[in-house]
C-alpha cells in the first residue's frame, strides 16, 4: 500500500464529510456573519434591533473576531459558490434543506477548516521525537474518526482556536513565550478557552518583568477586537453572558452561601504547582491537563473535543497506554452528547443527503414516555471524569 494512496483517501474522506454532512450551526454562523459584507459592524445590536424582520432571530454568541473572520470568508465563498449561497443561508423555511446546491455550499463554507487542519497537522508532526513517532502522529490524525465527525460533520470552527493552541505550544517549547502568548490571545479572541493556557506560558518565562509582558501581550490581543463592543448591552448579553465561564463555573458544591467551583480548584492547583516547581514545568502535559479539565468539569459541546484531539494524538503516538484512556474519554463524551435533545449530532447530520432525516427527533425522543436519563448521564460523566483524571496522572507520571 503506497502512503500517497492513503493520503489521497484521507483527503477524499475530508472533502466527502465536509460536503455531505450538515449541522445547522454552520448555517446560522455564516448567515449572521454575512451581515459583515453589508457593512454591519455590531452584529449583536443589529440582530436585536432587526429581530422582527430577520428569518433567523437567535443571538450571535461568538466574539467579534469570529464575526469578522466568517464574514470575510462568506464574501469569498459567495464568489466560489455563487450568489445562491447567500440565498440559501437566508432561507430558514421548511424547504431550506431541499436547496439544489447544498453540497457545494457546505464544502465551500468549510474550506477554512480544511486549510487550518493541514497546518495544524504539519505542526503536530514536528512534535514527533523520532521518525516512528512522526509517522504515528500523521496516520493517527489522518484517520481519526473524531476528526471527521467533529471538524467536518459537525462543521464548527473549533479547529481554528485548536490550531492556535498547537502553534502556541510549539512556540512555548521553543521558548518564544511572548509570541506564544500573542497566539493564545488570538485563539481566545475566537473562543475563550485558549486564554486559560496563558498562565502556563507566563510562568514558563523567567523574571516577573518578562512574565508581565507575556501576560499583557496575550490579554491585549484577546481584548482588542472586543474593545469597541464592550459598551454594547447586546454584546455583553450575547457573548459574555453565554460564554465558556457560565459552563465551567457550573460544577461545584455550596458552602454557606458561596460555591466551591471544581474547575477553579483544579485549575489553581495545576497552575500554582506549575509556577512553584521549575523542574516540573512540563508544557505539553500542562496544556493538555488544562484543556482536559475544561471538558471534564463543564457542560461541553461535542465539537469541543477538537480542542483535545491534537494533544491526545501526541500522547498516543508516544505510548499505547494512553489509547485506552483516550477511547474511554472520547466515547463517554460522545455518549453524553448523543443523549442531548439535539437531533443534529446524530441522524440529523445526514439531512443534507436526505432532508427528511432532519425532521426525525433526537435519539432520546424515540423512547416513550421519555426516560429520566439523569442517572445514566451521571454515570457516563463520572466515567469521563475518572478516565480524564487517570489520563492526567499518567501524563505526569510518564514525564517525571
Amino acid at each position: 500500500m503506497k502512503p500517497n494512496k492513503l493520503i489521497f483517501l484521507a483527503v477524499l474522506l475530508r472533502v466527502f464529510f465536509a460536503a455531505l454532512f450538515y449541522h445547522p450551526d454552520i448555517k446560522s454562523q455564516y448567515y449572521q456573519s454575512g451581515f459583515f459584507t453589508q457593512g454591519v459592524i455590531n452584529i449583536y445590536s443589529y440582530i436585536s434591533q432587526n429581530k422582527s424582520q430577520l428569518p433567523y432571530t437567535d443571538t450571535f454568541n461568538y466574539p467579534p473576531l469570529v464575526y469578522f473572520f466568517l464574514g470575510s470568508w462568506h464574501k469569498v465563498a459567495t464568489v466560489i459558490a455563487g450568489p445562491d449561497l447567500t440565498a440559501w443561508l437566508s432561507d430558514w423555511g421548511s424547504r431550506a434543506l431541499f436547496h439544489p446546491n447544498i453540497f457545494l455550499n457546505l464544502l465551500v463554507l468549510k474550506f477554512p477548516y480544511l486549510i487550518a487542519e493541514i497546518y495544524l497537522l504539519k505542526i503536530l508532526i514536528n512534535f514527533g521525537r523520532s521518525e516512528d513517532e512522526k509517522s504515528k502522529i500523521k496516520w493517527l490524525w489522518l484517520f481519526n474518526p473524531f476528526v471527521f465527525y467533529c471538524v467536518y460533520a459537525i462543521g464548527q470552527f473549533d479547529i481554528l482556536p485548536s490550531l492556535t493552541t498547537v502553534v502556541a505550544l510549539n512556540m512555548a517549547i521553543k521558548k518564544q513565550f511572548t509570541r506564544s502568548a500573542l497566539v493564545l490571545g488570538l485563539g481566545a479572541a475566537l473562543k475563550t478557552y485558549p486564554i486559560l493556557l496563558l498562565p502556563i506560558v507566563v510562568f514558563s518565562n523567567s523574571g516577573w518583568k518578562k512574565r508581565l509582558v507575556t501576560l499583557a501581550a496575550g490579554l491585549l490581543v484577546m481584548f482588542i477586537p472586543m474593545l469597541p463592543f464592550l459598551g454594547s448591552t447586546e454584546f455583553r448579553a450575547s457573548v459574555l453572558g453565554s460564554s465558556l465561564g457560565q459552563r465551567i463555573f457550573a460544577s461545584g458544591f455550596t458552602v454557606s452561601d458561596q460555591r466551591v467551583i471544581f474547575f477553579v480548584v483544579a485549575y489553581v492547583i495545576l497552575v500554582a504547582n506549575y509556577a512553584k516547581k521549575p523542574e516540573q514545568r512540563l508544557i505539553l502535559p500542562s496544556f493538555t491537563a488544562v484543556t482536559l479539565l475544561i471538558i471534564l468539569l463543564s457542560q461541553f459541546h461535542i465539537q469541543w473535543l477538537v480542542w483535545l484531539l491534537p494533544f491526545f494524538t501526541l500522547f498516543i503516538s508516544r505510548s499505547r497506554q494512553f489509547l485506552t484512556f483516550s477511547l474511554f474519554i472520547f466515547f463517554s463524551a460522545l455518549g453524553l452528547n448523543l443523549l442531548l435533545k439535539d437531533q443534529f449530532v446524530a441522524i440529523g447530520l445526514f439531512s443534507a443527503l436526505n432532508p427528511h432525516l432532519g425532521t426525525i427527533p433526537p435519539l432520546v425522543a424515540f423512547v416513550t414516555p421519555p426516560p429520566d436519563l439523569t442517572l445514566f448521564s451521571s454515570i457516563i460523566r463520572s466515567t469521563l471524569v475518572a478516565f480524564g483524571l487517570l489520563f492526567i496522572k499518567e501524563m505526569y507520571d510518564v514525564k517525571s
Partner: protein
Amino acid sequence: MSNLKTLYFLGLTYLIVPVIILIFLTVFAVKRIPDSSQEISERLVPITRTHPVTQSIIPVNNGFNTVVIYLRNKMLLNTDPLIFYLTDTQNQVLRQLTISGRNIGDGETIRFQFPPLSDSAGKLYTIRLEAPQTNFGSNIIEAGFSNSDTYPEGSSQDIQETGDLSFQFFYRPESKLVLLQNLFSRFVSQTLSVRFLVVFPVTLVVLYFLYLKFLQSGKSHIPADR
C-alpha cells in the same frame, strides 16, 4: 506495510458505513415527508372558549399524518388544554389530540402527529383548534395567520377571517422504493451541478498536493517537552 493496509480498509469503512446508515435511515426512519404549507405568519389570532380557530385544507399526498402550526403562548402563562381536531366534510372527527399550554412556547411551531390517513390526497378536511377552558382576556394561546388568502386550496371557516392559518403538513411515505429513488436522484442532481463538478475535484487535487507537500516536509524538531 500491513498497518497501512489496515488504515486503507479503515478509510474505506468510513466511506461505506455512512452510506449504509443513510440507506437504513431512509428506509426505516423516515416517517413523515413535507406535503403542503402556508408558512406566512403576519399576525396572531386568539384561541379561546368562544373563539376556536378553523382552517379547511387539502393535502396533496396520501398518508397525511402531521400538522405543524405556529402558536404563541405569551410569557408561557397559559396552562390550559388545547384541543386539535381534524374533521371531514361531514364534520366527523377523524383525529383528535389534546396538548397542554405548558408545552407551547412563546412563539414556536407545534407538531400535531396522528396515525396516517391512507387516502388523504386531494380530499377536503378541516383543522379546528379549541381552548375550552380559556376565556377571552385571560392568558391566551394565539395562532399565526397571514393577512391575505395565501392558501387558495382552503380557507378559514371564520367569516371575518381573510387570511390563512400558518401551517405545514407532512405525510407518511407509502413506498420505501420511492424514498430510495428520491435519495439517489437528489444525490445525482446535487453532484452534477456545474459548480460542484468544478469545485469538488479542484478541492480534492489542491488539498492532496498540499498534504503531500506539508506532510513530507517535516523538519527534525527540538525536544517536544521540557
